[in-house]
């Protein structure tokens, strides 16, 4: 902070403080000291007054003492030799009959951060630990930790550690908590304070006497304790029960964390605790303080990872109020996307629709992205909204909508037709490079469905000289090549111009290299190029339909109630999309590389253990195809069921429950109907095909199973799981 005339001010203060007349008048003297403190807090260097301030510490006035101590604590490390002069007064104060003075002096003496002070403070601290006033004991306990931090290399004094462990039984609750805090700091290198059974139970019984801060910290310390038996566990949990409803959010959340941690092997107890805490968490989300509201939302988000349905009935609580800051609105929208179900989808979409026209373009874009996410499950409704938004002709809205379209087409191929129809309308008003890239990708990938696509590309190619962004140029190259492959007659000429320009005149190396790559590729022949450039048109893992996956609590509990989830920056939907390993335009490169990473090595073991199916890492279409072709048929069986007559989503969900992933299936009623499934179990990868050719014969569903490595036991288990799922579906339909 710029401060004018600072030297003059310090000089004037120095003169005043050493003036005997001023020193005689207590009030005037104190006023000057107050002024010194005020300048100090404003960032002015008043360290040159140290000598005068030390003199002022010899007083009976406690407030003046406090001020001088504050001053000395700030500057003691700069002037260690002068600070030693003050030690005497402080040590005398440590023996004062007033416990407040004793505590004050001891605390400030420990706060002097200068070398060599520890030899002076050790004796008063040890005396303070046995003081009869709890106020002094509190300060002394903390003093032990401060002393340790002043000389980090010196060995820990075991007698002090023992004394602190003994003081855990102190009648004063703050002393107890301070002991924990101090021990934690002193024993930092050895892993902190040890919580054994007697200490844990002692702390649990003292819980209700502690102030909320103490409770919260004790709950954190108790995370280290593992109960020996289930009986002990449930005793502890019932002691903690009341704290789940604490008036202080931080205590309630800390209790929940401990609950989840202790009951790691009892999922029912965990679920119950989450149920119990849902209302305090919701209250926190409606708190007056926006910071608490934000923290509440972050915690709700974490809980939702394993209990997605818990907050669904309260979805209206997550509607944004007009006056809320954007970081809260972003979180609320993220939560709303997760909460959508068949009943509330109309209202949630209506709500999100109203955010799309918000004054803040950032917020509008996030809202549009949120609708795009919901569109993966409820595509029709969302597409209507998104198309409606295009009619507003607002640049930032159009840009966000096009980007959303791109992601949607990738994840949700059934929406392609509708998107292709509408995308032509927004060709004229895309300005920013993100939107241009998205539009070009759509044109290239689905050029055969958009009649005007080549002409739009031509406009871009003609305007190439004025285009600044190199990523747009790269996208344009890819789009033009793709377009050439499906509509060669209309595109050949402009592609030639584009390649010529990019190779001959372009200054950006990346763009030029890409153009050269395509040029050489085209020289090898159209078929070769097609093989390289054309990838799958939608997300091969089909993660779309999987919907809300329930994660086990253990996935997130380790950073529940920590800073991590709150400090993640407020970028919501864009990041996960960008971070996807298989971004559409990268397919060409990936195809060129030999992919082997998807097929994890399995070690065959011959065992008869119980079969546990699990999904494991998602398998891509290509990897599936390759593996399928490589393997021999292990098992073929005709099951006595017909094709399940339910919607694809329901079939997928039903199989997912049995931990079987559906990779692809024939849409609608076309014949023959096929479905490809995979799962993992007992260290083997199981691939299966369901085939239903003839509608006239009842119960002619043929299942073909391939395995890597072969494991007959797992195979039998898989077939029986599959047929029980099909049986259930058969009855349902």
């Amino acid at each position, binding site marked *: *902070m710029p401060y004018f005339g600072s030297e003059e001010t310090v000089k004037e203060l120095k003169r005043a403080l050493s003036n005997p007349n001023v020193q005689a008048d207590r*009030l005037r003297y*104190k006023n000057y000291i107050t002024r010194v*403190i*005020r300048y100090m*807090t*404003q*960032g002015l260097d008043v360290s040159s007054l140290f000598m005068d301030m030390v003199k002022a510490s010899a007083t009976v*006035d406690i*407030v003046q003492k*406090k*001020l001088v101590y504050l001053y000395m604590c*700030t500057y003691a490390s700069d002037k260690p030799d002068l600070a030693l002069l003050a030690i005497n007064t402080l040590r005398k104060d440590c023996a004062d009959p*007033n*416990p*407040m003075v004793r505590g004050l002096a001891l605390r400030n003496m420990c706060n002097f*951060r200068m070398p060599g002070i520890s030899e002076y403070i050790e004796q008063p601290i040890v005396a303070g630990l046995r003081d009869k006033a709890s*106020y002094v004991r509190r300060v002394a306990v*903390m003093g032990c930790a401060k002393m340790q931090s002043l000389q980090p290399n010196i060995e820990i004094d075991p007698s002090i550690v023992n004394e602190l462990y003994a003081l855990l039984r102190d009648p004063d*609750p*703050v002393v107890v908590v301070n002991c924990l*805090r101090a021990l934690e700091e002193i024993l930092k290198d050895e892993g902190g304070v040890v919580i054994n059974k007697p200490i844990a139970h002692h702390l649990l019984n003292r819980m209700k006497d502690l*102030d*909320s*801060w103490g409770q919260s910290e004790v709950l954190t310390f108790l995370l280290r304790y593992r109960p020996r038996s289930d009986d002990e566990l449930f005793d502890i949990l019932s002691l903690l029960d*009341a704290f789940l*409803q*604490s*008036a*202080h*959010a*931080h205590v309630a*959340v800390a209790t929940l964390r401990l609950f989840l941690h202790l009951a790691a092997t009892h999922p029912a107890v965990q679920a119950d605790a989450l149920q119990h805490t849902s*209302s305090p968490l*919701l*209250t926190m989300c*409606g708190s007056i*303080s*926006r*910071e*608490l509201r*934000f*923290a509440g939302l972050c915690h709700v988000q974490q809980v939702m990872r394993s209990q997605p349905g818990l907050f669904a009935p309260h979805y209206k*609580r997550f*509607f944004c*109020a*007009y*006056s809320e*800051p*954007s*970081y809260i609105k972003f979180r609320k929208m993220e939560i709303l996307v997760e909460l959508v179900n068949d009943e509330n989808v109309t209202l949630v979409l209506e709500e999100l629709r*109203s955010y799309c*026209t918000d*004054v803040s373009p950032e917020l509008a874009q996030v809202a549009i992205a949120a609708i795009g996410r919901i569109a993966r499950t409820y595509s029709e409704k969302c597409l209507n909204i998104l198309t409606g938004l295009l009619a*507003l002709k607002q640049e930032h809205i159009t840009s966000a909508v096009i980007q959303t379209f791109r992601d949607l087409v990738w994840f949700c191929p059934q929406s392609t037709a509708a998107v292709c129809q509408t995308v032509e309308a927004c060709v004229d008003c895309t300005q920013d490079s993100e939107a241009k890239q998205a539009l070009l990708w759509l044109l290239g990938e689905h050029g055969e469905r958009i009649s005007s696509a080549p002409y739009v590309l031509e406009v871009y190619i003609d305007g190439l000289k004025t285009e600044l962004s190199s990523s747009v140029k790269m996208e344009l190259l890819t789009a033009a090549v793709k377009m050439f492959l499906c509509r060669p007659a209309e595109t050949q000429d402009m592609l030639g111009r584009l390649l010529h320009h990019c190779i001959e005149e372009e200054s950006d190396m990346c763009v030029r290299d890409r153009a050269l790559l395509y040029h050489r590729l085209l020289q090898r022949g159209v078929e070769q190029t097609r093989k390289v450039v054309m990838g799958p048109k939608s997300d091969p893992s089909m993660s779309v339909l999987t919907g809300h996956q329930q994660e086990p609590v253990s996935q997130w509990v380790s950073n529940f*109630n*920590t*800073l991590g989830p709150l*400090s993640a*920056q407020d970028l919501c939907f864009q990041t996960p999309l960008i971070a996807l390993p298989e971004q559409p335009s990268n397919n060409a490169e990936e195809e060129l590389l030999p992919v082997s990473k998807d097929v994890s090595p399995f070690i065959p073991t011959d065992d008869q253990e119980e079969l546990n199916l699990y999904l494991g890492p998602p398998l891509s279409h290509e990897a599936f195809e390759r593996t399928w072709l490589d393997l021999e048929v292990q098992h073929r069986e005709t099951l006595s069921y017909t094709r399940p007559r339910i919607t694809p989503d329901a079939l997928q969900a039903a199989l997912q429950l049995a931990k079987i992933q559906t990779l692809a299936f024939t849409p609608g009623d076309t014949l023959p109907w096929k479905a490809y499934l995979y799962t993992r179990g007992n260290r083997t990868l199981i691939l299966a095909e369901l085939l239903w050719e003839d509608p006239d014969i009842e119960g002619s569903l043929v299942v073909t199973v391939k395995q890597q490595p072969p494991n007959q036991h797992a195979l039998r288990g898989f077939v029986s799981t599959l047929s029980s799922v099909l049986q259930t579906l058969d009855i349902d339909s």
Partner: protein
Amino acid sequence: MIHSLFLINNVGDLFLEKHWKSVISRSVCDYFFEAREKAVEPENVPPVIHTPHHYLINIYREKIFFVSVIQTEVPPLFVIEFLHQVAETFQDYFGECSETTINDNVVIVYELLEEMLDNGFPLATESNILKELIRPPTTLRSMVNTITGISNIGQTLPAGQLSSIPWRRAGVKYSNNEAYFDVVEEIDAILDKSGSTVFAEIQGGIDACVKLSGMPDLTLSFMNPRLLDDVSFHPCVRYKRWESEKVISFIPPDGNFQLMSYHVSAQNLVAIPVYVKQNISFFESGPSGRLDITVGPKQTMGKTVECVVVTIHMPKVVLSANLNATQGTYNYDPVTKVLMWDIGKLNPQKLPNLKGSLSLQSGAPKPEEIPNLNIDLKIQQLAISGLKVNQLEMFGEKYKPFKGVKYVTKAGKFQVRM
């Protein structure tokens, strides 16, 4: 835990710093200023900022940022609530928590911060205990102090610190024994254009002022306790009795405290006290628009709605407003684009109306976004949820105390969409 605290005003001047461990240079706040710059509005600064060596956790209250510096992993809620506690203590001591009062009372501020945290850990935060350690300034006392030079500090240790009930000091004596309870409810609601409720809930709390001698044991019961969805209590309340009998049984702290807070959210239970008929339109041709708002009472249970204030954040292109209010006064601030209409009491016979034209920036396109209305109101002697206190009984002491209950309903985040 909490290493340092910086107080920064809303224009970005750092006016107070306090370190509980080693001194951390002010330059750490540069990360905060960067985030502040990015957020544009002060409310938009994210509460947790990550820097290479520290975490900065901040709250924004009364136009002041309380920025705390953290070096180790801590539960974030703990720090956020603690910072609010600091702000509330200032409010409690100085009547308001503003830059001016903090600067005027810088000495007490330092004393308080010193007592509230030691080595970064909370030490004494209960206002009861703090007030005995450091007396709050009063006009009279500061005058007396100026004359006599006596400082406002307790000469003995607060006895309450050693009593078996940590929230109550021992040996309390009053000549007038009284216990007052204020049931304060805030309605948070969003209404849509047609007046139907998009979302509504009630946040309620019971604030108590108990000045009773000795160790009284109180029991407070309600006529309709099942109404409350979600309650949380002051640590003094015996939770088991609430669970089994739905009564609040407690030994109260001395003085002012919040006994409980609760939440009513079942949609059908939330009565909406006012309705708004609003119409705002901007014309395609000509730089103008029309505004017409009428406010009237709805479900008020026979009570008068007072202190009604309607606030509208207008679109940026609105230059000025030429309106006519049948009741109260209106004011349009062309800089912040906020139209504020202070109505006062609602008269059901003659509904207040605000009508007139808005002039827009010439040449600007018709605004896309439709502004929302925020409403502030107050109803005395009514808890809108219908919560009623049945009786207050006292055990453990012989005297007969004065008892009283007051009800107030206020608008929290009450918003009407146009």
